[in-house]
């Protein structure tokens, strides 16, 4: 049985897991769906309720029925090399590739495409987190300047953050979560949906990485000095246990979201209360593993096998 790793070649986070799978002697096929068709080939047949066929990449060929699990690790979009009718061809490629894989019974997905896609939406995350009992800071997403200003007045101080988590790319820019200054002019809220969230007076940040049933919890006590640790130098992380009051809720969140993997961000207030910020269904884990020693890559490899 083979583990499929769908990832772009330059993603060295994928390397961490493939290295461990190789050490374990587990057959792996790594390819980027963006290379299909072209360097990646697919041929499948439908007969009497069963999809059969194979995927070929280089000198490796895998029977789709022999796929044990699939790790979706930031792959490109299928049909990336199309030159004619690009949108249509890419859509056809998507349905051909993911359609064949989705039709195989018993494959373990990390994460299943449907769950992964649904989990990207911040509003749904917050509702799910609240439903399982996690504390969630109030938030507003609006194109109405008066509503944004009223929220800031009522709930301030507030932070502004991307709704999708995506950074601008035309031209490229980074968009850290940022404290909205007092007296801000909210008129530009009308130009695009704006996400404001009540700022939690935090003393620490938590990165809780979930792999199946396993929880890897890292804490940064330097976080209170910075709002968005992703853009700061010298942030230190250390292993901490998951509070008994949090672990079951996180597992319930993952189950409700249908996710096998997620990197959850929390902030901790002065009373040691945890507040859920978001779940990154394709979140990075390498920097946590390498700074804390948490064996996340090994856990992923073991889950996939």
């Amino acid at each position, binding site marked *: 049985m083979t583990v499929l790793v769908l990832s772009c070649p330059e993603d060295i986070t994928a390397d961490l897991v493939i290295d461990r799978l190789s050490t374990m002697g587990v057959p792996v096929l790594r390819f980027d769906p963006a290379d299909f068709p072209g360097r990646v080939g697919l041929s499948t047949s439908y007969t009497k309720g069963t999809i059969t066929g194979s995927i070929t990449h280089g000198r490796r060929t895998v029977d789709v029925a022999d796929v044990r699990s699939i790790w979706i690790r930031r792959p490109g979009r299928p049909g990336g090399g199309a030159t004619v009718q690009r949108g249509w061809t890419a859509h056809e490629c998507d349905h051909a590739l993911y359609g064949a894989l989705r039709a195989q019974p018993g494959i373990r997905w990390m994460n299943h495409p449907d769950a992964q896609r649904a989990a990207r939406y911040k509003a749904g995350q917050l509702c799910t987190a609240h439903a399982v009992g996690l504390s969630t800071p109030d938030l507003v997403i609006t194109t109405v300047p008066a509503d944004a200003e009223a929220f800031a007045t009522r709930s301030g101080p507030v932070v502004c953050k991307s709704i999708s988590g995506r950074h601008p790319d035309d031209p490229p820019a980074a968009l*850290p979560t940022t404290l909205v200054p007092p007296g801000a002019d909210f008129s530009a809220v009308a130009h695009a949906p704006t996400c404001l969230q009540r700022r939690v007076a935090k003393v620490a940040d938590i990165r809780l990485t979930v792999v199946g049933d396993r929880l890897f919890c890292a804490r940064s006590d330097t976080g209170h000095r910075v709002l968005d640790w*992703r853009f700061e130098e010298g942030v230190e992380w250390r292993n901490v246990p998951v509070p008994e009051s949090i672990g079951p809720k996180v597992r319930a969140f993952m189950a409700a979201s249908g996710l096998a993997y997620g990197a959850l961000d929390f902030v901790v207030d002065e009373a040691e209360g945890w507040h859920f910020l978001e779940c990154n269904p394709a979140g*990075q884990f390498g*920097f946590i593993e390498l*700074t804390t020693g948490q064996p996340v890559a090994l856990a992923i490899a073991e889950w996939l096998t």
Partner: protein
Amino acid sequence: MQPFALRFSQAPPDAGHPSFRYDGERQLNVQPDGSRVARQTSIWMATPLSTSTAGSKVHRDDDDHEYVH
């Protein structure tokens, strides 16, 4: 007409030029001497885009890659 959130945007971190390359046969990225990048912490942590130190490197945790439709 700039969206409100973009007033807080910054220049993106330099993506740099990695010294390694992808070895399709091994399905791993390797250094010029053939060693695995995955086992070289210093190189790994210094690499932006996919690594994400908690620092100035690009941290794309939340970036919602649209790889499935």
